[in-house]
């Protein structure tokens, strides 16, 4: 690929000036950037809510928040982090990197791409409005206090904010279905001539599975919340036993979406990890095919394991055993993935730049989430763990290292590619240690006061849980503040820094055989206007 030629072409097709560049953008890099900025903003919003939650739980007694406001924060923290932060950030990475990796000039459906991004701010506005519904529409009931699972009948009782949340889910759902279709089509149709499916970089594979999962699950969730809307306003009784319905039906619809959703959050980060670890171990990925197979098995099992979130609803023996066994079996693909990562490091020549530090910490902490996951999968034991802080600790270990740290690692790994500037390695390392240590001190103790009997979603608790809650809260504040450093590092990198080379990292070409390292850093506005030729790419 001739980099200068690309540069000259770029001058002819420069971006429009001003707001039009962003509002009407069909450029995958600009849309990717907007996704990432949106995710960053949402991370601070959702994070601020988490700080309020931890402030209230700092000690027993009601200090800052009314019970309903507390559970509204619990609800919105989760919805914002899942739909506003992790999913858009992963979609932003996909937008930026997938066309570069597979040598495509842009996404397959650029205008759809514009729509799927611009639906997000609308959805976010609806979500924020839901918190103000009791003020905007006095007399229509209180704040939504159900938790992100929106279980009826409590969600039938909730005020107008619930309608806003239902429409938020519709809008964000449309956005992610469109984005997923776009990504899947891009991967299947837009690869550089000669790039076979089983030669694609792992991040592309991960997103192929993610996109397909989202297309399967989002409509079910949208249907579920629409039935909720009908129960609330049109006299249907889907979820009301008094009218022949069943509240548990909603839980099945929700978790048919909700469980695969965990893998939607997780898989893009697994893909990132599968590129970062070989890069900094200077050794090819161990088990390229088996990792793809593992993701495929995870995809399949993930779709039929949903009711392990509802062991306590009183299912019959048969389905309960099925969901228990399937859930325990999920340890096989996850174990295989973790082994592949460990064996990639094994006999490599490792260096520890910030992305690699995050990658190693993910392998350790995600394993921990995995083993507490096995504990939770066991039905009789789960009948004690269910809905306690033990579960809260487990899924924060799964989602923060599993998804969020993967996004941090990706940001550090690709920031030089995006901006053309190296980030400040020293600050990056400070951020890593600060972030990871305070994360662990926040969530590790929660396993124990969960076991001792503190339920989730309670605004106040018995003094027996006081010491560890205080520890959790103090560490959580530190964890929250650490993200300001992350923001500072990003801004600093955008503004300048040591210039990055095309390959950025010494081991880049070992980490992936994609084409992203053949374009300059930062890449010109348009890349691969003519199809690139492939050097033999064999793992």
């Amino acid at each position: 690929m001739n980099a200068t030629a690309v540069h000259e072409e770029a001058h002819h097709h420069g971006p429009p000036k001003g707001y039009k560049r962003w509002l009407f953008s069909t450029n995958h890099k600009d849309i990717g950037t907007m996704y990432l900025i949106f995710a960053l903003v949402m991370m601070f919003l959702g994070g601020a809510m988490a700080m309020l939650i931890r402030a209230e739980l700092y000690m027993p007694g009601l200090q800052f928040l009314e019970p309903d406001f507390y559970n509204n924060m619990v609800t919105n923290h989760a919805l914002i982090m899942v739909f506003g932060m992790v999913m858009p950030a992963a979609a932003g990475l996909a937008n930026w990197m997938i066309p570069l990796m597979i040598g495509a000039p842009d996404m397959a459906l650029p205008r759809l791409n514009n729509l799927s991004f611009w639906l997000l701010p609308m959805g976010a506005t609806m979500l924020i409005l839901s918190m103000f519904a009791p003020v905007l529409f006095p007399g229509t009931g209180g704040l939504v206090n159900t938790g992100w699972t929106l279980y009826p009948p409590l969600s039938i009782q909730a005020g107008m904010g619930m309608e806003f949340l239902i429409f938020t889910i519709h809008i964000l759902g449309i956005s992610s279905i469109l984005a997923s279709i776009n990504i899947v089509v891009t991967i299947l149709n837009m690869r550089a001539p000669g790039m076979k499916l089983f030669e694609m970089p792992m991040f592309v594979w991960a997103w192929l599975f993610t996109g397909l999962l989202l297309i399967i699950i989002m409509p079910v969730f949208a249907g579920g919340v629409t039935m909720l809307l009908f129960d609330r306003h049109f006299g249907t009784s889907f979820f009301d036993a008094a009218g022949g319905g069943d509240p548990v039906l909603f839980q099945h619809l929700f978790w048919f979406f909700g469980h695969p959703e965990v893998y939607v959050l997780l898989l893009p980060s697994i893909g990132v990890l599968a590129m970062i670890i070989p890069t900094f171990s200077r050794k090819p990925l161990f088990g390229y095919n088996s990792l793809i197979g593992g993701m495929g098995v995870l995809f399949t099992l993930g779709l039929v394991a949903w009711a392990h979130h509802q062991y306590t609803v009183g299912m019959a023996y048969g389905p309960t055993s099925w969901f228990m066994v399937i859930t325990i079996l999920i340890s096989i693909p996850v174990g295989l993935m973790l082994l592949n990562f460990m064996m990639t490091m094994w006999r490599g020549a490792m260096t520890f730049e910030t992305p690699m530090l995050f990658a190693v910490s993910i392998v350790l902490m995600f394993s921990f989430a995995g083993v507490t996951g096995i504990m939770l999968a066991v039905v009789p034991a789960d009948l004690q763990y269910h809905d306690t802080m033990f579960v809260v600790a487990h899924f924060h270990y799964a989602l923060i290292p599993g998804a969020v740290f993967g996004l941090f690692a990706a940001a550090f790994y690709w920031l030089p590619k995006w901006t053309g500037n190296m980030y400040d390695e020293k600050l990056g390392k400070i951020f890593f240690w600060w972030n990871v240590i305070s994360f662990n001190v926040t969530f590790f103790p929660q396993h124990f006061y969960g076991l001792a009997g503190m339920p989730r979603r309670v605004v106040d608790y018995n003094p027996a849980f006081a010491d560890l809650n205080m520890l959790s809260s103090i560490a959580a504040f530190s964890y929250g503040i650490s993200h300001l450093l992350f923001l500072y590092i990003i801004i600093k990198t955008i503004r300048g820094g040591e210039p990055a080379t095309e390959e950025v990292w010494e081991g880049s070409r070992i980490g992936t055989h994609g084409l992203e390292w053949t374009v300059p850093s930062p890449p010109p506005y348009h890349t691969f206007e003519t199809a690139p030729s492939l050097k033999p790419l064999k793992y």
Partner: protein
Amino acid sequence: MKKLIATKLFKTPLWLTSIAASTLGFAQLAFAQEEPKYNLPTPVSPLTKDIYALHVMTSWVALILMVIVTIIVVYSLVKFRKSKGYEPDQNFHKSWFGRWAWALVPLLVLGIDMAIAGRAASTLKALYNHPDADITIKVTGSQWKWTYEYMDDDIRFNSNLNKDLTPEDKQYLRDVDNPLVLPVDTNVRFLHTATDVLHNWWVPAVAYKVDSVPGFINETRTRIEEIGTYRGQCAENCGTGHAFMPIVVKAVSKEDYAVWKTEQQAKSAAAAAEASADKEWSMDELMARGKAVYEKSCVACHQMTGEGIPGVFPALKGSPVAVGDMATHIGTVVNGVSGTAMAAWKNQLNDLELAAVITYERNAWDNDKGDLAQPADIKAVR
């Protein structure tokens, strides 16, 4: 039942059993008086003991797996560093291990999985086994209290949070006005349901949790083996008062239970007789009783001042219902308002209590309506 547990423990690998047993023993030794602060409460029934043993086993499996992972990662981090001049082995993934890891590792994990699932399945079967019970208790969750109904003994009462405790008290949010009283060494069946939203009756030492689903009945069982007081709380988010509906189970000897039962039956018979007597109650009597009922059952939403919580729970002070038509007021309290948190109180309070609380609401906080409801008025609309 004891034999069942013994067989099950016997099936688990011996080393795991011994570790589990020694951990259990240590836990009981270390927390002989206090409830454990960092682990599940000490179990007191065969099923919860079995679950506890399972928990100890899976915890050990988790710990051992974590140790293995950590050792591999830390060893790699120390040994395979570029700064130590280690040359990467570019062909490692082509070694025999690289070629067969995709099959070997899943097989190994499958083995561990089968061991766990097999051990779990025997406990699971025991949970779904439904032998005859000596006592059946219907436990009904409502926003935000529990109602206990001794199905064969005509005893029925509500159990509310003890509101007098402050965060400094040891049993803050873990104490109630009327605990559930059960005899030891007796097979007890709990039937769980709810009147409004999902609840979950969870006393970890006594019984595992299942949801209380409005319109459906779920079942759990226990056989408490030690006299004592066991505490827990609602474990399924049920709205504003979720943190404020604790559970206390008092396990007493069979003799004490018989005495308690007779007392309760006498008490409820007296209350029922009083409520259904054709007596005309005076304003003062109804106001005094109504205040007591209100403070127990209504303040969580409508507040002591009768002003509710603006936007969430309506005020009663000056409300169109409380100072309006008597029949509407009675209908609202007796049958509830569907789609809202206002419960139907007809199954939770008797005629006298309902009449008293309605009278109280119409005359307290400057409502001063001046009229009063009699138990007969309630009976008429039931």
